[in-house]
C-alpha cells in the first residue's frame, strides 16, 4: 500500500513500490492525462509534474514520490472549464492526433509556473524532451506563447482554488 498525493488528494494505492507512476495514474487512478509513449523517457507523452517539476512518469517508481505532490493534466481544468493553457491549446487548435498534447501541456505548465515571460528559444529548449509526430509544433509554441505573453506566471494551485 502506497499513499500518493495526486491532484491535491492523498489516496492509498494497492501497488508494488517499483510500479512506475504512469501505471498507478492510468490503471489504478483511472486518469487519462498521462500517456504511454515509449516507457523510456524519450518522448514525454507521460509527462506529469512532481512538486512542480516536469518528469517522465513512465520511469518514476511510486516509491520515489514520497510526499511530493503529483499533478496531471486533469488538475488544470475540465472539458467544460479548461484551464488557461488548455484553453490556449483549444484557441490555437494546437492538436492533430493529440496523443502527445497532454505531456506537452504539462511540460509547458511547469515552465510557465516558473518563468513569467519566456523567450521563444527558452520555450523551444524547454519543450525539446517532448516529441510530436504530427508536426503540430508551431501551434503548440503559439499556444504556449499566448499564455506566456500575458506576462504572469501561471498559478500552481489552479485546481484547488476552483474546488
Amino acid at each position, binding site marked *: 500500500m502506497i499513499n500518493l498525493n495526486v491532484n491535491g488528494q492523498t489516496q492509498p494505492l494497492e*501497488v*508494488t513500490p517499483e*510500479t*512506475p507512476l504512469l*501505471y498507478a495514474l*492510468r*490503471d*489504478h487512478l*483511472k*486518469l*487519462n*492525462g498521462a*500517456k*504511454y*509513449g*515509449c*516507457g*523510456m523517457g*524519450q*518522448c514525454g*507523452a507521460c509527462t506529469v509534474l512532481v512538486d512542480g517539476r516536469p518528469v517522465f512518469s513512465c520511469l518514476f517508481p511510486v516509491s520515489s514520490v514520497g510526499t511530493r505532490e503529483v499533478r*496531471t*493534466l*486533469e488538475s*488544470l*481544468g*475540465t*472539458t467544460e472549464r*479548461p484551464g488557461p493553457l*488548455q484553453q490556449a*491549446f*483549444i484557441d490555437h*487548435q494546437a*492538436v*492533430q*492526433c*493529440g*496523443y*502527445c*498534447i*497532454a505531456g506537452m*501541456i504539462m511540460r509547458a505548465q511547469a515552465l510557465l509556473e516558473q518563468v513569467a515571460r519566456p523567450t521563444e528559444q527558452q*520555450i*523551444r*529548449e524547454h*519543450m*525539446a*524532451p*517532448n*516529441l*510530436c*509526430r*504530427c*508536426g*503540430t*509544433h*508551431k*501551434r503548440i*509554441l503559439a499556444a504556449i506563447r499566448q499564455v506566456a505573453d500575458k506576462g504572469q506566471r501561471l498559478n500552481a494551485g489552479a485546481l484547488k482554488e476552483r474546488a
Partner: protein
Amino acid sequence: MKPADAPVDKSRRAFLAGSGFMVSFALFGSWRALAGETNTLGATILAPDLPGDLKIDPILDSWIKIDAQGVTVCSGKVELGTGVRTALWQIAADQLAMPLDKFKFVTADTALTPDEGYTAGSHSMADGGTAIYHAAIQVRQMLLEAAAAKLGVPTKSLMLRDGIILSGDGRQMTYEEAAQGVNLHQQAKSVSPQGDPSAYRYIGHSIPRVDIPAKVTGGTAYVQDLRLDGMLHARVVRPPNASAQLKEIDTRAIETMRGVVKVVRDGNFLAVLAEHEWEAIQAMRALRERAQWQLTQTYPTNDTIHAVLKTLPERLYVTTRENNGPVKQVLSNASAASISAPASPTRSLAMTKQYVLHGSIGPSCAVAVFRNDMLTVWTHSQGVFPLRAGIAELLGLPKENVRCIHAEGAGCYGHNGADDAACDAAVLAYRTPNRPVRVQWMRDQEAGWEPLGPAMLTEINAVTDAHGKLQSWHHALWSTPHNSRIVNAGRLIPATLLAHPAAPASPAPIPQPEGDADRNAVPLYRIPSVRVDMHFVTDMPFRTSAMRSLGAYINVTTIEGMMDDLAEQFGEDPVAYRLQHLDDPRARDVIQRAANRFGWNLATPLPEGHGIGFAFSQYKNLMGYCAIALEVKLDKAARSVRIVRVVAAVDCGQIVSPDGLTNQIEGGIVQSSSWTLYEQALVGENGVQSVDWSSYPIARFPHIPAAIEVELIDRPGAPFLGAAEIAQAPTAAALINAIKRVVGWRPLHLPVARQDSPIFA
C-alpha cells in the same frame, strides 16, 4: 512474338509495340470504376454513377438515419488526427441545415456505418465527404417534400432553420416529424439539388474541432483510455525478427507471477495476460528473457539494401503517357534486363531512400471481448471492415459475429501496427471468453513490427530539345509494396506467428493513376512521351506498406530535382521553367502564389550558408495541388540544416475547414522535413535495429522550421480534393533543391542531414 535470339530493341516505342511481351490489364482513359470492382481502398463498387462513396454504399439511410431520437449521420471514415471527423460533420450540418450539436455523428463501426474501406490516401474528403454532401442534401430535399405534402404547401415556400422546417404561415415541423412515412432506405440519385455555398455556416469556416476539448483535458479520447469492467491487460512478446523460430520456453515461473492470469503460446505467438498493466509488463519482460529463438535468416543492411532490391524477384509495371493523353499501365512480362534507359539523355538523376518508420507517438493498442459468440474489437485501425474480414477468417468466425469499432489512437500516417495489435487482442480475447482484453504494444514492438515505409531507388532520364523543352522522360524505380493492407488473415502479423500460420496474400500494387511505389512518377508537366518502369519487388526482405504519400515522396523529389537541374542547365529560373511545362491553370496558380508570397528570386543575395528551393506536385495527379518555396540555413560547423522560412500554396478544391487544412499542411511540412533530413530505420543482419527514439531519431522542437506560412486557394463549388498527404513530397523536393544551392551539388541519398552526411564536409 519476336524470336528469342533477336537483338533487343531498347527504344521505348519498340518495347511498347512488342505487345506479345505484355498483358494489358487496365486503361484509364476515362477513369471510371465498374460495378463489382474493388476500389483502391478495399471497398466494392456497387453504383459507379453515384458521387463519392455513394458508389460503394448507395442506400441513403446507410448515411443518414432519422428516428424518434433524432438525426444520425454515419461515416465509414475515421479520425486519424487530421480533423476529418469535424470536417465531415460540418458538411452534414450545412447540407442538412442543422447545427452541429443537433445531430449525432457516428464513424467507422462495422455494425453501424457504411463500409468505406480504408481511411487513407487522402480520400476522406473526396469520397467520404462527397457522399455525405450528396446524401444529406438529397435527404433534406425528401424531408422538405414530405413536409410540404403534410402541411399542404408548396415545397418552395418552406424555410429551414436549425433543423426545423418552417412554413410561411408560422407552422413548423421537425425533421423527425417530416421523416415519418418517408422511406430513406432507397438508392441515392446521381444528381443532387444544388447547394448554395454562400449560405454555408460551416463549410468554408474554421469550426473548432469537436475532439480537441477532451484531448487537452484528459477526457476519454483514445482506445488506450478504454477501461471495461473486468478488463485484463495483455502484452505480447515478439520474436527478434520475422523469421525467428521459438526454440523453447518454460512459462511456469511466469504463470505464478503476481497478477498473471495466463500465458499464451501458440507457435511463435507469445503473450501474457494479467490483472494490472504493470504486472503484464513485468511478466512480459520475464517471458522475453526466457524465450530462446532460432534465427533463420540474415537481412540486408542499410548499406546493401539498394543493391539487394535490384536483385530480388519483381514484377515490372510499365506506365506510359503519350502526347499528354491519358496514362496507360501494363504488367510487362519482359525481363528487367531487357529494358534500359534511353540512349543519350539530356540529364540523368538517380536517388535512394532508406526505410522509414511511421513512428506513431502512441504504440498500437486495442481492446477486445468475446462474449456470447460475438467478438467485439475496439481498434484504431484505418479500416474496420477489412480488419473484421481478416479476423473472422483467422478465427473461423462468420463476419457477422465480429464487430470492429473504431476508437482513436495516436496519429498513424499510414499502415502501422494498429491492425496487428487489434488481431493480437482478438486472438487473446477469443481464448479468454467474457473478459475484455487490452493489448498495448511496447515502443520497441511498434518500431520493430510496424510495416516500414519502403526503401527505394529512382532513376530518371530526361530528353529535351536544344532549348530545354522536355521531349521524353523515363523514370525507373525499385520498391517493395506500399500497400500490404489487410486483404486476408495472413496480412495480420499474429496470424503469421501461430503454429498453423495463415499465409499473407501475394502483394499487388495500387494501380495507376493513383499509383503505389510509382505514385506521382508520371510528371504533371507537358512532355510528349513519358514512361515509368516500376520494378515491383515482390519478395520483401522487410514487411513494407503504406506510409503517408507512398512513392510520391521520392518520385516527386527526383522529378523536381530534375526540373531544377534542367532549368539550371538551360539558364532558366526554376519556377519559370516549371510554368513553361504546365497547362493546368490550377497548377500554375499554386506555383505562382507560392513564388509571389515567398518573394522568389534567385538573384536576391542571401547570408552565407543559406539557399532557397522550390517544388510542386499535384498529389497523385488527381488530388490537392501544393507548391512549396523555402529557405534553408546550412551550418557546417554545427552540422545542422534548418528551414528558416517556408511558404506553401495549396488548392484542395472547395475548402471545408481552412484552419484544419492549414494544420495538415503545416504538419506535413514538419514531418516531411524530419524524414528528409534525419530519418532512416536502422536495418542489419538480424533485422530491424531501430527500437526507440535514440535509434530512430526524429526532429524535436529546436529543429523544426522557424516560420511556416500556408496560403489557401478556395474553389467554392469545386469537388473536395484530398489534402492530408500533399505537402510531403514537395517539401522534401524543395528542401533538397535548396540544399543543393548551398553546397553546390545535389544530395542523392535520403536522409541528407545525418551527422556523417557529406553535405557538412
